[in-house]
């Protein structure tokens, strides 16, 4: 009984998850099929042809490129901004604490709804942001519906929603740093830029890596914001992995190709998350051993 106990306790959770694991393997299988919902007669096993076809497919490489650019751009901006805000709010004063709580609100807004909010604000007819930029001289700024500014607009929404996430993690990190090195540096009159680059930043690095990898994994899979804003458009300008495979499945009913696309995305995230989990375990070790 004693030995069976842990299994018994985790069994129900496990069973629920197995139900979810099966479709995962189904997806792997589908990705090896020629499988179109509208042409059931053509269904057949084709090994890796779906993947091989990607190599010469411009749409696929566009998806890879735009997904990586999207993830890099959003996480880069969010990291810089989040770090800056965390530094601004570092001192636990009453005002700073209230500000950091208020900054949680965008993070608690559903991304799909946040996209709708920004769509209303960037509407060319009455959007307040369209009005603001027209004051700056950009009279025909089309935001998400113009291929040249679509990425910028969607990045803006992503930054609005997710910067607070990085900010919260880094703020928690900053406030948990040991005081001694900073007091010693202040006593010795060490310049503040030196303190920042040689003490704060290296000590904060584990938090920075964790926060940005966490975000990177999410961002490369972004669906809600892009889909609600532009459905991958204009044209194929924002055709990120999950939006592309969603359309492939429901619009073109090409299940095999859709599944193969997602497997490629999964491979990329798996690689990234392995790095992440290693880093995360190291941090856990430190948090448990050091405290």
């Amino acid at each position, binding site marked *: 009984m004693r030995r069976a106990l842990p299994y018994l306790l985790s069994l129900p959770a496990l069973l629920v998850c197995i139900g979810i694991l099966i479709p*995962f393997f189904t997806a792997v299988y589908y990705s090896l099929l020629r499988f179109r919902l509208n042409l059931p007669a053509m269904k057949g096993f084709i090994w890796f042809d779906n993947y091989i076809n990607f190599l010469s497919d411009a749409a696929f490489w566009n998806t890879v490129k735009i997904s990586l650019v999207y993830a890099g751009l959003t996480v880069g901006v969010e990291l810089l901004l989040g770090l800056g805000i965390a530094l601004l709010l570092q001192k636990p004063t009453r005002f700073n604490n209230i500000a950091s709580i208020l900054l949680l*609100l965008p993070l608690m807004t559903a991304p799909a709804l946040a996209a709708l909010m920004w769509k209303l604000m960037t509407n060319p007819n009455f959007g307040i942001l369209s009005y603001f930029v027209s004051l700056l001289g950009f009279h025909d700024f089309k935001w998400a519906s113009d291929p040249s500014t679509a990425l910028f607009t969607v990045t803006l929404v992503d930054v609005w929603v997710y910067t607070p996430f990085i900010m*919260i993690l880094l703020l928690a990190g900053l406030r948990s740093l040991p005081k001694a090195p900073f007091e010693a540096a202040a006593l010795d009159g060490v310049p503040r830029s030196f303190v920042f680059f040689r003490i704060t930043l290296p000590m904060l690095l584990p*938090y920075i890596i*964790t926060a940005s990898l966490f975000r990177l994994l999410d961002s490369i*899979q972004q669906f*809600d914001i892009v889909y609600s804003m532009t459905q991958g458009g204009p044209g194929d300008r924002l055709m990120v992995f999950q939006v592309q495979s969603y359309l492939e499945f429901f619009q073109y009913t090409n299940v095999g190709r859709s599944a193969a696309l*997602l497997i490629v995305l999964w491979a990329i995230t798996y690689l990234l998350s392995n790095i992440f989990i290693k880093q995360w375990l190291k941090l*856990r070790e430190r948090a448990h051993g050091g405290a």
Partner: protein
Amino acid sequence: MDHTSTLERVIRGALITCVLVFFLFPIFWIVLMSFQTNETILRIPPSIVFEPTLSNYSALITGKLETTAGNLDIAFMRNLWNSFFLSAASVLIALALGIPAAYAFARFRFRLGEDIAFTLLSFRFAPPLLVLLPLSLYFKQLGLTNTYIGLIWVYQLICLPLILWIVRGYFEDISPDIEHAYRISGNSWLKTFWKIAVPLAKPGIAAAGLLAFIFAWNNFVFALILASADKQPVTVGALAFVTASGIQYGQIAAAIVLSIAPTLALALYAQRYLVEGLSLGAVKG
């Protein structure tokens, strides 16, 4: 640190103000918009002076939408109820399944234990569509498409890993000595778990449950694929509503406000738990 000059304090204050404006203005503006009719929304230049009206909200609540094309029935309140029901039921089930499992992972070194824990964690990082697209075909065969049961099951994908990992961290922080002492005085294992471990981990359970509720509420893609209109939560319903309502922008804004208000209110009310949950879940475990 105490030698901050006045100039620096002014600069800091100004920067923080800019940050707050950027992050709070969209919410403020949508709330204002929800109290306006198209007439004042479409004014150029825009102005924050207007006669507030509750007509948008009353249209949503009564479900009778007046558009230029005529009257329209909408089920927005139904979406709101779906969001509430799906999130609450999912979190309750995830807590019932997740707390015992989290305890097992924290207290017993057992074979497969770490493997199972990692498998569960890796769900957090798999592309949701990878599971959802095949699942949509299975659900059709099983008759689970557009059912609450099917949706709540899939919502475990969000809630369960979150609860498992946050609560596990809390259990690990409780010294086993307290439990041993209680057991030695003749109490059963189950009683120890229920009377000692669970109450001590309460803050973690609250934080995890709260975060899970908010993430479930904010989810979009699960219901987009697996639910039709009558079971859809607000995230999907609002998008459909935009197309349906045509150009009644005030009503769209009011629908957004009603959809985000619950999670924002919850976040403000329980912000301490929330920050703890977010940072523990990600950094410490």
